[in-house]
Structure formats: structure tokens, C-alpha cells
């Protein structure tokens, strides 16, 4: 995804140093690194461990526990599709099946294209206007197959 800087150790060290004073600083640091670089590079582990006086195992454990933190740079656009119950009630699983059948894109899996990754998310808090998706921080409601294909950049927006 465009908009992220290439990983650099000095930049990362600055971010870590700027937040290390916080109580329980690990998550704020990880969010800040991911916000800057699009992911958390393995080289961040010793940096954070040093700054917070933690073991590398503890830092690695935290990174690997949370679904949000990525350990490789994102290659394409990321579409987060809600697949929790309220969106299931409005057919989100049908959308998932159609996406694979019509476009070869597997949610949370290997797809025919690298241009977009569709990820499962459980609840975006838009349960009265589902199915819902989150793209670049924008919440989209009443998603149908056409709209999902647009969000994935597979077809241009109809209007």
C-alpha cells in the first residue's frame, strides 16, 4: 500500500524512544511502527526489548498474539470484511464465496492477485447497516458483490 515509508532502523528507534516513557508502552509503540512502515519488522523486536527492559521473547510474544500486527510489508490494498454474526445474517458469507468464484480472491488466503488482500474482521460496529467493510480507515455499509469488487479495485465504481 502506498503511503508507508520503507523500514529504517533509525526511524524505528526514534519512534520507540519517543513512546518508551509510557506505562505499558509496547502496544502504542507497535501501533506507531505499523502506522509508519505498514508492518513491524523483525528488527523492531530487540529495539523495543532494549528500550522497555523486556526480553525479546516477551516482545515477540506480544506481536504474535494480536491479529492487527503484520510482520511483512503489505503489498496491495487491504480490505477488511466483517464476517461476524450480524453481517452473516445479511449474507457476508455469500460475498466471500462470490469473491472467490468470480475473481479468484480468497479471504485470508492466497489469491490470484497481489493487488488486494481481503481480511476477515469480526465486527466493525455497523451491525444495523451490514454487510460492512473497512478500507483505509473508511467504514462502508450495505456492501454487495458489486461494491465489494469496487472496494477491491477489481471493477471501477458504477454511478
Amino acid at each position: 500500500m502506498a503511503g508507508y515509508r520503507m523500514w529504517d532502523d533509525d526511524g524505528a528507534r526514534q519512534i520507540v524512544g519517543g513512546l518508551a516513557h509510557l506505562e505499558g508502552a509496547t502496544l502504542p509503540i507497535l501501533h506507531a511502527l505499523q502506522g509508519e512502515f505498514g508492518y513491524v519488522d523483525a528488527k523492531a523486536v530487540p529495539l523495543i526489548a532494549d528500550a522497555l527492559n523486556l526480553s525479546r521473547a516477551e516482545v515477540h510474544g506480544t506481536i504474535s498474539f494480536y491479529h492487527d500486527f503484520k510482520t511483512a510489508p503489505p503489498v496491495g490494498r487491504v480490505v477488511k470484511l466483517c464476517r461476524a454474526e450480524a453481517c452473516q445474517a445479511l449474507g457476508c458469507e455469500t460475498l466471500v464465496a462470490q469473491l472467490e468464484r468470480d475473481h479468484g480472491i480468497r479471504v485470508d488466503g492466497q489469491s490470484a492477485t497481489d493487488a488486494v488482500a481481503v481480511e476477515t474482521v469480526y465486527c466493525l460496529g455497523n451491525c444495523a447497516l451490514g454487510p460492512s467493510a473497512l478500507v483505509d480507515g473508511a467504514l462502508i455499509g450495505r456492501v454487495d458483490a458489486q461494491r465489494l469488487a469496487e472496494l477491491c479495485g477489481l471493477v471501477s465504481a458504477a454511478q
Partner: protein
Amino acid sequence: MSAPTAPVRVFIPVDAAALSVGAEAVAQAVSREAAARGITIDLVRNGSRGMLWLEPLVEVETPQGRIAYGPVAARDVAGLVDAGLVQGGEHPLRLGLVDDLDWMKRQQRLTFARTGVIDPLSLSDYRAHDGLAGLKAALALTGAEIVEIVRASGLRGRGGAGFPTGIKWKTVHDARADQKYIVCNADEGDSGTFADRMLFEGDPFLTIEGMVIAAIAVGATRGYIYLRSEYPHAYRTMQRAILKAEQAGILGDSVLGSAHAFHLEVRLGAGAYICGEETSLLESLEGKRGVVRAKPPIPALKGLFGQPTIVNNVLSFAAVPWILQHGAQVYADFGVGRSRGTLPVQLGGNVRRGGLIELAFGISLREIIEDLGGGTLSGRPIRAVQVGGPLGAYLTAAQLNVAMDYEALAAIKGMLGHGGIVVFDDSVDMAQQARFAFAFCAKESCGKCTPCRIGATRGVETMDKIIAGTERPKNLAILRDLSKLMTDASLCAMGGLTPNPVLSALDHFPEDFDRPAGPAKNWPLAAE
């Protein structure tokens, strides 16, 4: 052209749900079309009224009151302005006075009194609508007096467990420590719930005020809001609200000039459902894996960084300012039995009119889903309703007369949870829903206790065999045995309650567990 009168106030929500169906484009169109006609307006970006099927809802302030139009699409705006939008003119989308709409009239909005009404980040709006009245009342009381008022109000934790808030506060109040913490659980992960999000986006100062009152009551000087990362809009709004509250002296070294200090930060979760469990949330705030802690010790005595900590849900904190302002008894007069006060109900899923409804405890599910909600969106019959999030039971259409209160739902093996209701029509396959309950638990389990970590995966496998028609009687027996084990032996509610949706699906919809196994017994691809 335009007379030099005060510009008309036009309200268009900045709530994420409204934005999800085009409120931003509508706001831009209204500004543009008004300017093109030389009409000066004061465009206020409010929260949502909770009538989500009417979003984007545009309101105009008139001498008679606020007149609503909705749902408005950007392409409707030019016509609306020509029809005299700013005077509340006639138009097919005109709904009339907001306060006269049936949805609004039937509610008792205490917590959500301001949401959708005011500019969320305007402290002068907040003050003009009774904001800070509860905090000012609290500042005249001792900590013990505040705790007693909260206890007497009958307020119970709105996160799901329903533990009496006053008792939790008293425990922290009586604990002796150099540092105490106030932690707000805004990890609203249950599908079908969005009240915390709407409140943060529509009236963020209310939760801040409730937390400050809690801090004064128990002598805490630091607080954290743990907010899920799936809510970027709420995060931004709350960050800005905290900054404004600091500038206004509501937060900081001296709360409203008093001797009380309270510092507040909002922290983001990272996509882990389990972090809504309070001990897991505390671990996460400390920067660790969100692994559940064994209790005791309870967080009220050993919570964040081992210090006495109040952990309450957003809606619990948000109820407190009203209680302090109006008195414990007035609040307790709402509700039934041991469920006192009001409950913000969230109606979603396959429903025609979904949204937020705040009501005294005791209304029936049927009134909410059929009268207010208007039945299913698809127009097909209601088959199942899940109340209380992914760990709540599935109820049948025949059970909808149950009252929305903690005990009445528990009596039919249901659960109120955080007040979310998800409606399914007759196309739902309940065996698949049961399988999903296990799959969700397998994905979101913290992994600490074996019944949850292993049981959820075994549950998925067992459901797959049942769906495939393999030795059904034997596998159904395994399913019940496994469910009993998870219920009895899991460390927290995640593993302990996952059998709720599973067994309720099996008990109420046995036919779905006994269908001939066919090829591609997955989700139907047809429909549209």
C-alpha cells in the same frame, strides 16, 4: 439575497455508521448547494440519533424544533434545498419533527440524551445540555458518598456480566494503595453491538465525565480507555475530546479547580476479541499478550500494574453522571426487578429498521424487533435471534415475548450481554452458526486454558462431522459432552459461554443438525 439573521443550523452526522452510507458526500453537497443559492448555513456534524436505517439523516433547526429528512443521498440534496430544506420545507424525504418520530418518542434516553443532538466536540454544547452537572455534584461529596449513590442506583455493569457497579467501586474505595487506576473497557467486540462506538463518536465527554467521577470516588489519579482498533473514528473523536477536556481543566492536576487530579489516556487494542475480558484487557494495557488472568485476585484489588483498579464498561461509566445529577432513586425507578435503570439496546442483523434504542429494562424482545425494528430486512420470516453477542444464545421466533432484563433472559438460558440483538431470517443454517461459534472461539481464544484452546478446535471438527452426516448420534453426544466440559472448566467466559450459541442452536433447531449431507453444504450462493 440572504437577510442578516443568524444562519440556520443544519445537522449531518459524522457517526461512522452514517458515514458508511454516504453522510460525508451529503454534507459536502448541502454546503455546496446552499452556497450556490446564497444561503448561509451553520453545518453541525453531530452524532447519530440511532435511527440507522434513516442515515444519512439531515436535520434542520426551525422555530418548531428540529425537522428531519432521511435517508438522504447526495443526489437528493439539490432538490431538497430547492424545496426549502433550511425552512423545513415539504419534500418526500421529510420525516417531521425528530422528537415526534415513534422511534424517538418510545425511548427513555438518559445515557444517549445528547448523542445526535449536540456537536460532539463542543464543550459549550455539552454544558448547555446538562454536561458536567454530575461531576459538579460529585465534587461536593466524599468518595464514600459517591460510591453509596452508585450502589443505591442499582446500576449493574453494562459489559455483560451485570455485576453491581457500586460494590466494585466500594472495593476499590476501601483498598489502600499509592496508585489506583480507572480503566474503561471500550473493546466492544460483540457482533451486534455498537452503543460504545456511537457514544464515543456522538458524546465523548460523557464517558470522560463518568470516569472522572469514578476517580474522585475511589481516589484514583490515572485512567485508561481501552478502545478496539476496529473503531478508528471513535478513536480520533475521543483523542480530541480528551485534549479539549484537558484544556478546559476537566482532566489534569486539578479537576475543575478541586484538589483531585486525574489523567486520562485512550489506548488502542489490536484486533483481539478476548481483550474485552477484563483481566486480558489489563494484560494488554500493560503491553503483554492478552492472556486471561486467574481470579482471585480480583482487579478491584490487584488490577492494572497490580494496583486497585476499577474496570467498567463504557455504558456503566456513562450512566454515572446522570445518576449523580438526578439522584440514585430516580434512576432506580426505571426498570424491573433487579435490573434497574435503562439499557441501550442495539438492534442489527437482518432487520428492516436497525439502530440504537435506550429503554428502561423490561420491554419484550418482540416489541423491539417487530414494532420498532419492523421485522426482517429481507421480508422473510424471523427464524432465530441472537441476544448478547457471539457468546449469547440463539432464541426462536416463539421465544420473543421474553423481557429484556438480566434475570428473565437467564431464565430461558439466554444472556443480555452488552444489549446487542442480531436477527436472522429463515435462510439461516443453525448447524453452520453452531460451527461458527466454535470456529470463532478457536480463533480468538487466548490459549491459556485447555478446555477453551483445545475444546473449540474439537468443536469445529465435531460439527464438521455432524454436518457431513458422519455417525451423527455419536458425534452429537460428543458435542454435548464437550460443551459441558467447556462450560464447567474454562477459565473465563470465552470458553465457558461458547456452548451457549452451540447448545441453543441444537436444542431449538434440531432439524438443522439432521439434514441429509449434500455436496457443497456450505453457504447458499443463490439469493440475488
